[in-house]
């Protein structure tokens, strides 16, 4: 069992589960500006492969911005970022398909069903049809959405959408999970169902943004506090 450490401030190093491997994430002096507002300023972070890291901080402290930069969805304004050994933003195109990203808003088409959304995601990630079908069925069952898999996403509750979006994020079995409040809208039973699906380990690294300090420290090897 890894030692849990809470770090205050802007520089952090997460302990390794798999010693000797290239760190999953290496960030140095990261800065991101939105016009005149600075969301991240001089962040240093090192996360070893297989680690589970919780990111805490008040609203506006740059947690979601950090995840979007690490996912290759946002360009940093300054500093150095390396994810899975790839330098961002130069090698963002090589990172595609290797990250399981869960944002604030679900990346689901509202007029498609959960199953259709997952089929689309599987096709985009190059998963062969014969593998995608069973994998989608298994995930839908695992999150308890079998009965609603054919309904339009627009007809689902926020919690149900979150479950399907989590399925979407892990469908292609990425080595890095970047999750922004995965527990949002989920009831305790759903949280228990989903926990094993999004756990770190076996070479899979996990960064989770959370507002729940208790749950974050319990589920993570390491806590990074922003703001």
């Amino acid at each position, binding site marked *: 069992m890894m030692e849990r450490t809470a770090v205050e401030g802007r520089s952090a190093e997460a302990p390794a589960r798999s010693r000797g491997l290239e760190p999953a994430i290496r960030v140095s002096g990261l800065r991101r500006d939105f016009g005149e507002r600075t969301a991240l300023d001089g962040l240093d972070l090192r996360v070893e492969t297989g680690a589970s890291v919780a990111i805490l901080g008040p609203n506006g402290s740059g947690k979601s911005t950090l995840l979007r930069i690490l996912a290759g969805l946002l*360009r940093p304004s300054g500093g150095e970022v390396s994810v899975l050994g790839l330098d961002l*933003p130069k090698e963002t195109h090589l990172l*595609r*398909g290797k990250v399981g990203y869960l944002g604030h*808003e*679900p990346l689901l088409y509202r007029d*498609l069903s959960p199953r259709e959304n997952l089929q*689309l995601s599987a*096709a985009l990630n*190059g998963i062969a049809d014969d593998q995608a079908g069973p994998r989608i069925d298994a995930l839908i069952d695992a999150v308890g959405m079998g009965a609603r898999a054919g309904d339009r996403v627009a007809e689902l509750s926020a919690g149900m959408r979150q479950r399907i979006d989590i399925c979407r994020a892990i469908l292609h079995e990425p080595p890095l999970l970047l999750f922004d409040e995965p527990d949002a809208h989920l009831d305790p039973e759903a949280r228990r169902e989903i926990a094993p699906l999004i756990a770190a380990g076996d070479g899979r690294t996990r960064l989770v943004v959370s507002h729940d300090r208790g749950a974050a420290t319990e589920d993570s090897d390491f806590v990074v506090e922003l703001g």
Partner: protein
Amino acid sequence: MTAFVALLRKDLRVELRTLRSIPSMALFAVTAFVIFRFGLDREQLSGELAAGVLVPTLLFAALLAINRLFVAEREEGGFDLVRLAPVDGTVLFAAKASALVVYLVVLELVAVPIFALFFLDSAAGLLPLALVLLLADIGLAATGTVISTIATMSSARDLLAPLILLPLLVPLVIAAAGAGEHLLAEGGPDYGRFGTWLGLLGLYDLIFLLVGYATFDFLLDD
């Protein structure tokens, strides 16, 4: 299933399910024909006047779909979905442009016969006109997809898309209306300069397909 097929199927499926674009395009075109019929006070049109009514009407109807083309991508995270996946952004360009061509063909299957019913005394020019319209559709879809992507990133998207798009479409409109003028000429189609106009349309399509291919991945970037 390839990413292109999956994205195209998604768009067609959503349109079939919601009927957000094609019915409003068709309704717009038919309403415009009714207004032209009474506004011009003519029961028959031919030559440049016929082409001048048909081509701009189809163009303005197409703007309704172009304005809506990336609404779901913007509001439901479709751009991020593509940017996270190991596919080139041009796959999205190809799928969106193809979906738009399908919308336009369906629109024309409804609107052109109604136009003929309202204004033409002979349907002889309609078959070759279909080829002209298909080439115009491809150019319109390629240009519309690129401009719609740019406009989507702006808060003034409803204004921006037509403002940038319409000037770019002028050569396309000239070529399509030029070909249409001869095909809908009084007394039957005249194929004199048909090849020239088709060549011009083909060249326009090629240029804007290449522009889309070359720029789309960059447009999707942060």
